[in-house]
């Protein structure tokens, strides 16, 4: 038996043959070691072996024998935090926290030279949430937090309440629990883009030691559903099954194998013999719309529309007349790419039957309540017998607004009556999880000589892939706010969401609006150039203002209205900052061309469909509060914001409010944390609940003391009734004596929806020899109303802007002619690393919203939308060439730059 010294504890254990140190350490319940990619690309699994950092996923486990292994749990050797943990705490250098352990383990080994050269030194660690700005702060000793003082919660930069757990490795993400008697599930995925399964021989797989069960399409309920999660399931087409006898994209589940170990389940998948009848496939949505194209889904006779899942069209005014009035007209087709969310925690869930005889599903989801409803339907069991919950979620960005792992584990656990777990690999995330919708957008736009837009005509083709979840909703978003952002009497549009044999697309931060914003914001610039008008002036002249109808291509009345309006201030800020400059000059030489660009984005806060949230508050015997809210915390900072909203109303510290969230048993209903609703809907529910809590306390205090209600007031941890002071714990005791429960519950609904704005400014240099792009100055201004927690709001924007740069400059999912993704690894399908991410100056417009809770509006979603078009506009400004298709990688710019020069 080998002996492993992990964090000073000796383990007598033997790793499995071929096991890597990452999985071995986790098998010892050392859960601070995270799995992000299992291929040495992301750094989440970084541990020290004899004091040096290594990717533990690439170290054979037996090499740890006789060495001193240190993980994040062992960093605070004396019980005192390591100074680096303290630095990450003070800078709040994380959002979801999944990368933090690996980031810290790498950073603590830095020499002064490495600390001075972080772009090189941090190459081996990826973060998808922060845009690295706060990490840079931590490594330079910047403190971003303020003290938690009673009565000062609103607008204070308070620390994430789970900071200690996250930075010491004690925070439990979805897969970070040891479950006795656990089975592991793996799926075999289709190598074909379109095929009928004519036979599956499971005998070899079942003969593998440890394999417990194999499930195929023959075994599962024949209920159609959509994996997309929304309040109203009717917005998504019921077009998939747990397992199907037709596969419609490379990567679709073919069969599930359940085994005693992950290795046995994987071996079982490899041993399955599947016969396929290959069917013709189609990947281009334009081709898929043609008569005679291969059909993805059987349609009934009433609505036979081929592969077009959804068409949205409309016109206001008279577009033909509008173009007739135009002095200049710009017309161009723009296109955007698929992108993967790359939340560092992959999808995964664990299901078991509890002592209460109910089914429990622990998952990584943005919408556990919607998942509960859907699971109950698919399995044919009552929702009350089902408990779906999250603990810590390692990032979402829309990718977890999807039920893609819970269904099979629940199915298997019901069948086998044993706990079942399924953790996705990074490759599965790339080939089988949803992506951003690839859209092609044709824009025709005309304006008078003075810049006044007279007509807009937009055509969108959206590739929704093999299944239609989110297809209509993203198309709706694509046809809405980017067009509504401009005041124009004559607007027309048509959009199609089309099935193809590609990986299904889904929700992704920006949600369809990103794609149209990319097109329209470039068209506005082109029109400005035609007219000789400054891009800022062009936008000021045409952007929608209070009093205007907020309308896209439909005349129906909308529930969107301005609770506040800060777009003009955002434009002013970005123009001022770009003019002021930041002192960074372009690299020397005539081969470097410099230019600047701007783009704006408008967001209706919340989806047009229903969205609701509940919050529950209780006064506890010790005089502190309990808050329960259904929203998911996935790095968006919503638990901090909700606590701050409640603490502000109750005049207390956030430390005196404990919080639980996203749990169908223990929190009130919440539609889901997506579409930027965490603050505006969930926050509103918390606001109402906290007000009700205060009213309840004061009403009881008044009854209890006989002092008139208007003479009673709450003061942090006590009530004053006239001159008498009663601590909240005394008051609670008094209430308990007469069976008063100090418990309140409130709900919030979305409508009306207010409107947020974001403006991005970029100055950059383009190397005309190589096509390289260097961002020199990046400025972002956001009209998000009153920031509940400015530090977190800035972090959300840092992350959104970084994601925007990734989409514009780096990320590239490459599929070949057979619909197979060619680069399904983080090494080859890249997301921005520290060195790729420019520093962005973030500013907030000084607005207080009349609709959102405490003056706040949405802030997590929209920051990404203006980034790619601002980059495109800056490239056009620098080179005189319009690059209308993402991504702007060197090889794609280089050919035209070469021809031009």
């Amino acid at each position, binding site marked *: 038996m080998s002996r492993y010294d992990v964090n000073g504890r000796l383990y007598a254990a033997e790793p499995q043959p071929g096991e890597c140190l990452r999985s071995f350490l986790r098998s010892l319940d050392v859960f601070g070691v995270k799995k992000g990619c299992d291929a040495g690309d992301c750094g989440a699994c970084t541990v020290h072996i004899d004091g040096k950092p290594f990717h533990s996923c690439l170290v054979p486990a037996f090499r740890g024998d006789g060495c001193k292994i240190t993980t994040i749990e062992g960093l605070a050797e004396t019980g005192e935090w390591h100074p680096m943990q303290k630095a990450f705490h003070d800078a709040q250098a994380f959002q979801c926290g999944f990368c933090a352990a690996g980031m810290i383990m790498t950073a603590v080994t830095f020499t002064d030279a490495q600390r001075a*050269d972080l*772009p*090189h030194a941090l190459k081996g660690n990826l973060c998808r949430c922060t845009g690295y700005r706060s990490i*840079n702060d931590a490594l330079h000793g910047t403190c971003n937090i303020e003290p938690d003082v009673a009565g000062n919660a609103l607008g204070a930069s308070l620390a994430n309440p789970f900071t200690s757990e996250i930075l010491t490795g004690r925070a439990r993400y979805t897969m970070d629990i040891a479950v006795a008697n656990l089975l592991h599930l793996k799926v075999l995925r289709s190598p074909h883009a379109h095929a009928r399964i004519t036979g599956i021989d499971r005998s070899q797989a079942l003969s593998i030691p440890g394999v417990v069960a194999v499930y195929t399409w023959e075994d599962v309920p024949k209920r159609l559903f959509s994996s997309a999660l929304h309040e109203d399931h009717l917005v998504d087409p019921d077009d998939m099954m747990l397992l199907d006898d037709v596969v419609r994209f490379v990567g679709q589940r073919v069969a599930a194998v359940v085994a005693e170990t992950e290795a046995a389940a994987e071996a079982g998948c490899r041993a399955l013999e599947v016969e396929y009848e290959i069917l013709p496939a189609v990947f281009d949505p334009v081709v898929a719309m043609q008569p005679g194209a291969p059909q993805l889904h059987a349609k009934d006779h009433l609505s036979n529309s081929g592969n077009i899942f959804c068409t949205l069209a409309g016109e206001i005014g008279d577009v033909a007349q509008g173009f007739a009035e135009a002095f200049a007209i710009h017309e161009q087709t723009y296109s955007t790419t698929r992108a993967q969310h790359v939340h560092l925690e992959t999808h995964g869930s664990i299901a078991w039957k509890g002592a209460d005889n109910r089914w429990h599903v622990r998952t990584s989801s943005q919408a556990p309540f919607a998942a509960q409803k859907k699971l109950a339907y698919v399995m044919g069991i009552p929702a009350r017998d089902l408990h779906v919950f999250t603990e810590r979620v390692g990032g979402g960005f829309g990718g977890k607004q999807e039920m893609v792992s819970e269904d099979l584990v629940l199915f298997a656990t019901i069948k086998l009556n044993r706990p079942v777990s399924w953790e996705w690999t990074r490759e599965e995330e790339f080939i089988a999880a949803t992506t951003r919708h690839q859209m092609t957008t044709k824009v025709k736009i005309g304006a008078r000589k003075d810049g006044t837009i007279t007509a807009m005509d937009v055509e969108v083709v959206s590739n929704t892939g093999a299944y239609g979840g989110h297809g209509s909703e993203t198309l709706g978003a694509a046809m809405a706010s980017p067009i509504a952002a401009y005041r124009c009497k004559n607007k027309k549009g048509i959009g199609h969401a089309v099935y193809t044999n590609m990986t299904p697309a889904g929700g992704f931060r920006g949600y369809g609006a990103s794609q149209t914003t990319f097109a329209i914001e470039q068209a506005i610039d082109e029109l400005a150039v035609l007219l000789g008008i400054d891009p800022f002036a062009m936008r000021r002249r045409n952007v929608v203002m209070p009093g205007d109808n907020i309308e896209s291509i439909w005349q129906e009345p909308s529930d969107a209205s301005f609770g506040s309006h800060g777009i003009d201030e955002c434009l002013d800020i970005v123009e001022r900052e770009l003019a002021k400059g930041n002192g960074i000059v372009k690299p020397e030489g005539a081969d470097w061309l410099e230019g600047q660009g701007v783009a704006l984005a408008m967001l209706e806060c919340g989806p047009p469909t229903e969205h609701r949230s509940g919050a529950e508050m209780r006064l506890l015997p010790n005089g502190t509060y309990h808050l329960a809210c259904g929203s998911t915390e996935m790095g968006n900072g919503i638990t901090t914001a909700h606590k701050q909203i409640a603490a502000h109303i109750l005049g207390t510290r956030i430390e005196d409010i404990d919080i639980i969230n996203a749990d169908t048993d223990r929190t009130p209903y919440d539609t889901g944390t997506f579409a930027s609703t965490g603050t505006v809907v969930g926050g509103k529910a918390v606001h109402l609940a906290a007000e009700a809590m205060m009213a309840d306390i004061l009403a009881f205090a008044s009854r209890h003391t006989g002092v008139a209600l208007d003479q009673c007031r709450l003061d942090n941890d006590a009530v004053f009734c006239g001159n008498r002071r009663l601590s909240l714990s005394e008051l609670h005791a008094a209430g308990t004596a007469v069976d008063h429960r100090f418990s309140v519950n409130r709900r919030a609904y979305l409508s009306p929806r207010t409107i947020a704005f974001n403006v991005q400014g970029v100055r950059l240099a383009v190397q005309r020899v190589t096509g390289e792009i*260097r961002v020199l100055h990046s400025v972002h201004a956001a009209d998000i109303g009153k920031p509940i927690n400015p530090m977190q709001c800035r972090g959300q924007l840092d992350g959104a802007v970084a994601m925007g740069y990734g989409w514009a400059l780096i990320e590239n999912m490459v599929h070949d002619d057979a619909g*197979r993704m060619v680069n399904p690894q983080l090494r*080859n399908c890249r997301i921005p690393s520290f*060195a790729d991410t420019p520093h962005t100056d973030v500013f907030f417009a000084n607005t207080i919203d009349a609709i959102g809770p405490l003056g706040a509006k949405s802030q997590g979603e929209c920051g990404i939308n203006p980034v790619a078009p601002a980059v495109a506009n800056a490239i056009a400004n620098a080179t005189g060439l319009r690059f209308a298709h993402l991504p702007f990688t060197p090889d794609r710019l*280089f050919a035209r730059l070469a021809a031009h020069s």
Partner: protein
Amino acid sequence: MNRFDYIRPATVSEAVAAASVPGSAYLAAGTNLIDLMKGGVVRPERLVDVSHLPGLDGIEHFPDGGLRIGALVRNADLAHDADFAARFPAVAEALLSGASPQLRNAATVGGNLLQRTRCAYFYDVASACNKRTPGAGCDARGGQTRLQAVLGWSEACIATHPSDFCVPLVALDAIVEIEGRSGRRDVPLESFYRLPGDTPERESVLEAGELILAVRLPGTAAAFAGHARYLKVRDRTSYAFAIVSAAAALQIESGRILQARLALGGVALKPWRTRAAEDSMAGEITGPDTFRRAADIALADAQPSGDNAFKIELARRIVVRALSQAAVGTPKRMPALPASPFAAVSGAITYV
């Protein structure tokens, strides 16, 4: 991952004997092999662990300025050896431009030489690949060819060699020391790799069981220290394999080139040294004309293997830039990566 035997020999000769059995693979750090085994891309029947073998982890300096790097020297230790970096700055620059600190802490010199191509079709076990399964065909042909070879490729294989480290090594006349059943032999790195031809599964001249013991750099190579650069174009600022890279080294006297060295990465299944281009610069004045002529010669035989003709022109431009940067002189300090918040502070640019 497949089941395999694991052998831990005590000496080099035991290792060679053990690995001479067909189906064997050497395991050093395993940063590439473990990843490939996890994905089922390679399935060795026995792993011969050489990571602990004595005497292979030292850097020896010779009086003539040359040196011998043991096969088990970690990339991090080599790159941060100040003496080494001063004498062979382009090699250090190449090492630091690749991988991450965590990987360089593990990865060895010998393993770097033998790392496998990053061709996506090689990695995807559902694709046909002659390298993985001889005779199976090559799905990269007619597939996504953006990153594939433009020099020395064959119908059977159009993959590229991923190493940064080997590009300046081959330019600087590095020698590979090999031990096999029939004893020791030295092979210049330039002739160590095989072009794919009809047998892309055979990547080097190593025979069954042969083990790399060390890499030697001759003293003459240190004479280029004042004018040596490694330049790399990639999709992302850091942590990405090269689309095209170039190692350029010059000896200059009074503005005239005495000797030039030039090798390209990312363009072929081996680091591509181009002696004709080197010779064209000898005796010439440093400057764009000389460098452009060299670039044209270096890429004269290049042919797109698909939709990647852009790489040929890009490679010409990278050659010109690398040579121009080398002519200016080796920087005293490793420049910062460009897009980072610190690039502007240092004011330096490199790595295009």
